[in-house]
């Protein structure tokens, strides 16, 4: 589903990604862990071109992201993204937040888009808030709306950029629960997270990033119980 080969990203002279290679299969849920500054968010943002890679190759579902003639907007419809700070549209109701993009893309009629949005909102448990505005929701509810908003475009891949880092501890669970459900339904997911419990329980594979490269990867058991690299051990000893 996702192939990444020798991916490099520079911010000016600073090399943030120093050659990333990985392959993520369809239906796989991959968690990316690592210290801040290790490049995990940048890597994720390269996957829907919110950051333009400097060098390398990314292929998602047969589309080459480095292609000069790539329709970026079309790619982004197929690759959903959930942000740390939710980024809901504060001037629109919850329902409008979800229906805006599908209606603009003429994927559905307005009526169908609303029905589909309500279905998604009910699925993530905020159906009763459809006519409220984002400011009236708790952090956990906002993030679940953000997930529904991405799902409304029926993406092939979902990217999560530290989806629970901005939440109060008591709200982390409800968001992770929605993500877990999604993973079990077979969505291809790449999750940058500090929630080691989630990574252990839900991830099919865990990537440990350090200094702009993937230092170690494997099943959650391999990474958490039998890490090979000293750096991985050091990191895990600090966060677990």
């Amino acid at each position, binding site marked *: 589903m996702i192939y990444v080969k020798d991916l490099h990203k520079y911010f000016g002279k600073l090399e943030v990604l120093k050659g990333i290679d990985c392959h993520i299969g369809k239906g796989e849920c991959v968690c990316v862990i690592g210290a801040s500054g290790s490049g995990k968010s940048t890597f994720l943002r390269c996957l829907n071109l919110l950051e333009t890679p400097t060098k390398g190759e990314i292929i998602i579902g047969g589309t080459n992201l480095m292609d000069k003639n790539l329709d970026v*907007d079309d790619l982004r419809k197929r690759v959903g993204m959930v*942000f740390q700070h939710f980024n809901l549209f504060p001037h629109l109701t919850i329902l409008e937040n979800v229906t*805006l993009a599908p209606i603009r893309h003429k994927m559905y009629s307005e009526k169908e888009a609303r029905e589909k949005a309500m279905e998604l909102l009910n699925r993530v448990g905020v159906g009763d808030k459809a006519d409220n505005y984002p*400011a009236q929701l708790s952090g956990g509810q906002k993030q679940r709306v953000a997930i529904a908003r991405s799902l409304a475009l029926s993406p092939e891949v979902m990217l999560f950029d530290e989806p629970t880092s901005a939440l109060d501890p008591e709200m982390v669970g409800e968001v992770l629960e929605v993500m877990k459900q999604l993973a079990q339904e077979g969505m291809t997911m790449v999750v940058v997270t500090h929630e080691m419990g989630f990574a252990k329980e839900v991830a099919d594979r865990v990537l440990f990033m350090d200094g702009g490269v993937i230092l170690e990867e494997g099943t959650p058991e391999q990474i958490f119980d039998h890490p090979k690299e000293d750096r991985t051990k050091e990191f895990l000893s600090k966060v677990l």
Partner: protein
Amino acid sequence: MEQLQSDIYQVFIEADRYKMFLDGLKVTIGVSIAAVLLGILLGMVLALMKMTEVRKGKKTIFSVVANIYIDIIRGTPTVVQLLIIYFLVFQTQMGMVAGIVTFGINSSAYVAEIIRAGIMAVDKGQMEAGRSLGLSYTETMRYIILPQAVKNILPALGNEFIVLIKETAILGYVAIQDLTKASDFIVSRTYIMFVPLIGCALIYYVLVKILTIGLNAFERRLRQSDIR
């Protein structure tokens, strides 16, 4: 006291001079409204031209042109701009239009900065969220950024409108009978200074006051959507 009463009579009532004030007021308001609309339109275009620099991460032809334009407009007196446009560009034809064009161009430079600042004040994540949903830059601007930017822009824009109304007092330079010119004319007719000048100032003051109250009310209504 009696002197004042007869002055007021002479200035406003005699020979229907109040009509001159009214006509002048109409010109002032008309030019101001037309100019502010032109200014917002041009300012919007200039702001978007300037913003291409933010989007591309480097200077573009558009941003350079917009910057030079804004630089020149802000660096020269409005009166001089009015004289240049009336005498050189319009060749002393169509004074009103020349006035509207001058003040429109003049205020566009300031409005551009106001609009740009208002757009930049919207959280960066909003653009990212819009784009990540596959909306184009233009769609994201239109449906997500601008509706939020309006709240930031409106107070400063109201201020700009107020400044503009008072600036139009220089229209008399090119023989347009605005409010100031009208009172000036009446001074020269009646040899009374106090009443026409203070009257003129009062009319401007009331005009601006009404506008301020209206803008405040409008702003409050916009803010209401924040306190839910």
